[in-house]
């Protein structure tokens, strides 16, 4: 029989699965107006919730088919005359005002185009929900992707122009990996940009000369892994140095840059990078777990960046992924490069096998 003090301690560090399920359910429904800044990225918020439910093995609480339809309504499809191919992909939301439609041809609109992070999270969300991607216009997505790569190898987010950096290389690599087609990017140039982003301290910045950071280091290493070029792009010496930079990020949980406070999301960004580099096993799981759980919101569910702060979908999802990496019971394993569950990854592999088989039989 546990004493009251022991019971209290147990409650402090236990994982509140049901609260997190409800947190993600609410996220998928309606958010208050103060979340307005998320409008153009609603599809990424959906990904956090849907993938989070997958990690929790709770996808049964949502209506998958309705969600799949909504995602397809965000696809920017080619117009009749195919004049907008370089703008194809997925939108983050309906904010431009295109009338709801899940099929083509696309509607010509002067400002409608896909966004690389939305194409990436659109595809992953479809996969997680069990869709077979048969309604994705793959060639159009890849044409849209190709239009976003710059001379220096990095990518913009949208064809109208935006900032360009390593985040969008990661999105592009995920898209090509999922569609099993690398014609959408110049891999060599992307590798050059990634290498150029390596800092003197052996982490990766958002671009050349910029401060090394856990998020960008994840983008760099995960992209190279997805491309299958990790050991071609980086020497053993460089890989060892990167391992050292990453492993020094653990303070209790992880931070993203030296001398900055820890933040739950880096338990995934840095943790997954360490896993891809085969040294996550040498981190301190207990301290990592204790930190992540200290940011758990016991009332509304989800996780925040810091203890006693408001939870949000990103930290809720990445906190779960951080726990999954250390083998927290009852959480599905996460593919550290693609950032979906191994279950969803296996679904992707089966799909890709079907595509290869069909390509073989078509003459």
């Amino acid at each position, binding site marked *: 029989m546990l004493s009251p003090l022991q019971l209290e301690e147990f409650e402090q560090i236990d994982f509140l699965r049901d609260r997190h399920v409800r947190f993600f359910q609410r*996220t998928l429904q309606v958010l208050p107006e103060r979340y*307005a800044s998320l409008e153009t990225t609603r599809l990424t918020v959906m990904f956090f919730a849907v993938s989070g439910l997958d990690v929790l093995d709770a996808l049964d609480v949502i209506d998958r088919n309705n969600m799949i339809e909504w995602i397809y309504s965000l696809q920017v499809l080619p117009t009749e005359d195919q004049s907008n191919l370089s703008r194809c992909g997925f939108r983050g939301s309906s904010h431009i005002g295109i009338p709801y439609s899940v099929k083509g041809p696309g509607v010509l609109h002067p400002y409608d185009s896909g966004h690389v992070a939305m194409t990436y999270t659109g595809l992953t969300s479809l996969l997680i929900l069990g869709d077979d991607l048969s309604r994705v216009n793959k060639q159009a997505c890849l044409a849209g992707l190709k239009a976003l790569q710059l001379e220096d190898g990095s990518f913009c987010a949208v064809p109208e122009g935006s900032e360009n950096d390593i985040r969008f290389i990661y999105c592009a690599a995920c898209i090509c990996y999922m569609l099993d087609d690398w014609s959408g990017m110049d891999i060599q140039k992307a590798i050059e940009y990634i290498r150029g982003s390596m800092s003197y301290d052996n982490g990766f910045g958002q671009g050349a000369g910029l*401060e090394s950071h856990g998020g960008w280091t994840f983008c760099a290493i995960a992209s190279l892994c997805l491309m299958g070029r990790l050991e071609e792009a980086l020497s053993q010496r460089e890989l060892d140095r990167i391992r050292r930079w990453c492993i020094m990020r653990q303070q209790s949980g992880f931070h993203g840059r030296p001398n900055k406070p820890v933040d739950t999301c880096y338990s995934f960004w840095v943790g997954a990078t360490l896993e891809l580099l085969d040294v996550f096993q040498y981190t301190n799981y207990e301290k990592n777990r204790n930190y992540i759980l200290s940011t758990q919101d016991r009332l509304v569910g989800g996780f925040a960046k810091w203890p006693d702060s408001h939870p949000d979908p990103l930290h809720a999802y990445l906190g779960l992924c951080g726990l999954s990496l250390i083998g927290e019971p009852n959480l599905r394993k996460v593919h550290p490069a693609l950032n979906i569950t191994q279950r969803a990854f296996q679904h992707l592999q089966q799909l890709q096998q079907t595509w290869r088989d069909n390509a073989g039989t078509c003459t």
Partner: protein
Amino acid sequence: MFYRDRKEWADLEPVPQDDGPNPVVKIAYSEKFSDVYDYFRALLKKDERSDRAFALTAEAIELNAANYTVWHYRRVLLQALQKDLREEMRYITDIIEEQPKNYQVWHHRRMVVEWLNDPSEELEFIADILSQDAKNYHAWQHRQWVIQEYKLWDNELEFVEKLLEEDVRNNSVWNQRHFVISHTTGYSSPAILDREVQYCLNQIRKAPHNESAWNYLKGILQDRGMSSHPGLLEQVLELKETHCSPYLLAFLVDCYEDALENNNQKETLNRALEVCEYLAQEKDTIRKEYWLFLQRSLESRFECIDVLLCQGISPLLKSDIKNGV
């Protein structure tokens, strides 16, 4: 007053958002918010180029400064209507001061600076943003862009030194130091390299537990011979007695590793293994498993020559195999 009730807007049919029968992650907008954006969508559809459109973008931005489509449309209008870009600089300055961690506002500022081809306000503006948050990644990124694009290197090292005096642990500033020097004098001259090494050691004496300083020191030496820099190892061993830290000890291990690569000596290897043990068991226990792993790696890579001879194996051949030759 809502746009839908204004007679100057009566010619325009508002365009609502359409998420279909089962919206996901729907945001519950107030009437005011929806009204502004319904008219924004109407303008976009027509690709209207007018002052009323330009004015509306400011309202849309105030409601959601992260909407990149609004910013893009505003830039189209800035050019189409030949708007005063100096005034736009004042506008974007105010917005960034309010929302310094938003990607779109910094990108917009960069575009306006490029159009004006005038970076003259930038360094002071960025310094002001940094005075509020000295590690704002967007601010440092914009600063590096301006400096590199317009060749404004002259006073940057002085700026770096001032900020390091304020906070010697600011990793962004150490990064900026490397950025400036590598793009100006470089590190090849022994005089510069030694100046930087001594600068680091001085900062470490003042604040020993500072990963940024140690990372910088290792960074500038790691491909220029850590163990061969005159007197460095001795200085570090001296510091170990009074200013020890996990970073100092890790640096020592790296020095020994560098020495071993050039001259595989049993004594050096033993020292390296000892420091790994010290880190694992006492000075950096959170990374215990990593330091033990590193210890095993070093052992395996630099196994002693006399051990090999006892095993009757040609040491040269075995080390060739280990090093993948």
